[in-house]
């Protein structure tokens, strides 16, 4: 009963707080300027820039995957510069220990002559943490990030310390050098909102980079976002309205990633071993809100869900060996799912088609 009352109050509050155009305009303006800076500094990665910004607005962690030299680290550094957030980088290596990330207690003598254990925070205590080549650290070290990514806190010797807000982990990993690496466990992968693949740049983009930039140095941002402006963005994000049919669509989409589900496609039933978790649905919903905000709308539509579904699901769906044999990846499975799933759940027969003339 209590839960129902809370839900009704939440819906009622949301119904009264659908953003007006003038309320949404400042946030849209901030986002536009941020994207302009990103697109100007990093050429040829417009889609990645938008997805990274969506991840940040959704307070999610992002796993960047690609071969070396594609600008993963540069992207994270630039984001931190534009958002004017504290940025730290950890180069993950096999001998990296959890204390190297979280911090450690050191026995020190105080001015009064007493000795006490003093906590020296690790690099995790920052706003944006770049975990470079995260798959090179041992599982023990990787697991040190589990609590921080989910709870935004660090617990050492029974003491829990909150991390500075906002806190984002932007990790990178190299998909081709697998020797001496430790693939991320599913629990770790599930904590990343997006997994973004960095593809090779087009020839024109490379030409532009080497023609305009000496030694490839990035130009400094001409505009930076302040703390208040970032908070404004987060507040606006909280007021983006998610309609019930869209929420149901997200739920059906995630459920349909499980083999045997009534709405699962043939590719899901054939190639998927394990489907996405409820955390995936939450991530999609948050990311869809951010996508709607980027699109200048106060409400989430089906298009927003479709835009963020692939990066939110591709690391949460585990394919079976048949998929390896048939060279099917998660992108194709998700694409099939998005194409076949009826968004509005009208339940129309197959011979009745809807379109807009």
């Amino acid at each position, binding site marked *: 009963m209590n839960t129902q009352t809370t839900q009704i109050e939440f819906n009622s509050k949301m119904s009264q707080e659908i953003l007006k155009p003038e309320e949404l305009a400042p946030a849209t303006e901030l986002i536009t300027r941020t994207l302009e800076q990103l697109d100007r500094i990093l050429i040829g990665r417009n889609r990645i820039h938008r997805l990274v910004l969506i991840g940040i607005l959704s307070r999610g962690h992002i796993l960047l995957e690609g071969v070396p030299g594609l600008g993963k680290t540069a992207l994270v550094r630039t984001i931190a510069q534009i958002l004017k957030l504290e940025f730290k980088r950890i180069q993950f290596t096999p001998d990296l220990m959890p204390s190297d990330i979280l911090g450690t207690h050191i026995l020190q003598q105080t001015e009064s002559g007493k000795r006490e254990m003093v906590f020296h925070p690790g690099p995790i205590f920052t706003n944006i943490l770049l975990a470079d080549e995260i798959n090179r650290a041992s599982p023990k070290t990787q697991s040190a990030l589990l609590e921080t990514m989910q709870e935004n806190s660090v617990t050492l010797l029974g003491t829990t310390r909150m991390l500075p807000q906002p806190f984002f982990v932007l990790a990178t990993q190299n998909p081709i050098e697998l020797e001496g690496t430790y693939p991320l466990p599913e629990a770790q992968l599930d904590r990343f909102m997006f997994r973004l693949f960095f593809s090779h740049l087009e020839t024109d983009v490379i030409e532009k980079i080497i023609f305009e930039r000496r030694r490839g140095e990035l130009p400094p941002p001409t505009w930076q976002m302040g703390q208040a402006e970032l908070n404004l963005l987060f507040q606006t994000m909280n007021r983006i309205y998610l309609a019930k049919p869209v929420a149901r669509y997200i739920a059906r989409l995630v459920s349909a990633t499980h083999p045997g589900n009534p709405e699962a496609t043939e590719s899901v039933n054939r190639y998927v071993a394990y489907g996405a978790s409820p955390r995936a649905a939450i991530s999609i919903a948050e990311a869809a809100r951010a996508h709607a905000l980027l699109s200048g709308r106060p409400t989430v539509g*089906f298009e927003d869900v479709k835009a963020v579904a692939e990066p939110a699901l591709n690391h949460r769906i585990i394919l079976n060996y048949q998929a390896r044999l048939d060279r099917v990846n998660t992108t194709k499975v998700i694409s099939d799912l998005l194409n076949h799933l009826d968004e509005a759940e009208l339940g129309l027969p197959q011979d009745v088609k809807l379109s*807009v*003339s």
Partner: protein
Amino acid sequence: MRGHRHATGEITKDIDHTRAKKAFARKLIWVLMIRRAVLWITIWLFAYGVGILVARGLGLQQVPLSTIGILGLVVAGIGAAVFQVRRLPTASAIRAAYDHLNSCGGIIMAEEAGDTTVWQTRVPSRVPSLRWHATRNLILLCLAIGFATTSLLLPVRYIKFGAKQPLEIGQLIQELKMEVDTLKEEKLIQEEKAIELLNQLSKLQNESSGFDPYKTWEALDHLKQSTSDLARQAAEEALAKLDTLATVESLAMALQKAMEDGSLAPEITSSIAHVFTAMLDSGKLSEGFFTNLSLLNLQFTSNALSTADLKSLLNGIQCTRCNISNAVARLADAKLIDAKTLAQCQKACLSTKTNLDNLLAYLCQNTNGCDQNLALLLLTGGVDRGPGNAPMIWGEESPEQGAKFKEIALPTSGRIETAQFIGVSIGPPVEIQPEENASTTGGTLTGRGTSDHTAHVSMILPRHRQAVQRYFQREKQ
């Protein structure tokens, strides 16, 4: 319709989303209802066509097929509409579909949460088009209509191929009825039996069916066989009676001639009167069939036979023969007997026994003591159908040589492959003869044959022999 200029400078046509949504919902409902109605009507028409075929095949002409068809169409249409109305998408789903198709980004869906009028002016409000790919459904509907129409217009003869149809046995029944009537008229069967047979024929004619023709054919064959057997039996009896009458007529004519000539002794006439009576009795003219046709008068005026008596007897015989012959002819006309039997009867009707003249002449010359033997002489001899009375003769018993089984003791089997080497004797093998008085009582070998080497010998059936052989071959390997 009015225009709004946005910050981007784009002008969006402001159309009433409410009206557009209603139009979309209306269109959606109509299309779904029509589609469902077409489906149900198609199913009904196929079912109706099958029903028509069944009804017409069973000969249910009184069923109002057209009324049922029209009522069914109406019910199917209305039922489909009601069924579809109860399964229409919810208003929320329709709104979501409208939002999605117009790329409104959730603005329309947010109506349920609050006022989005300001935002609605920025999104297009086109009525989504709905396309029903009805080719397959319409083809099926046309086929159903064609099937129902064909079922309705198809001639009955193409439908009633499996229905109950009487056999074409009218002519056969008429022939059989005529045969039965003939048998009844000739008094060969009784009145009740004839009525029973006629009833059976009528029942067969009514119950004969194309489903099971063998039963009818078998019953008709049985009736036909019964009447034919009866007629044949009557014809054979008529033949025998005609033969007897021919004999009596010949004797009577010979006697009449002898009496007119005066060559016959008067004392023999009394014996001959008894002879006539005995002959006619032996011919069993008063028994069996055709008894009603006999016109014989054996009441002679006195013990002695007179010329008038003989004349009267001859007339009776002639009339009787004529009547029997006519009766047999009628049986032949009714095809109850064949032409050969009829010819035999006609021949017997016209024939006379000429060899009796010589007998009479002999009697006339040797009257002494002949009167006692006359009946015996006239009534015996010749070829008749009496049973043979030859005695059965039992001779010597057949010898058993060559037929009795002779026991032969078979030689011991040479199971070399199962023999075991136990040693080498120092001398030649000696055949041990069994002692004459050797006791064979007791022990497990009691009663065993010479070829048994063990106390327990399992019998190997022929069907197991191959398997046992393979088993020992495998042991060798």
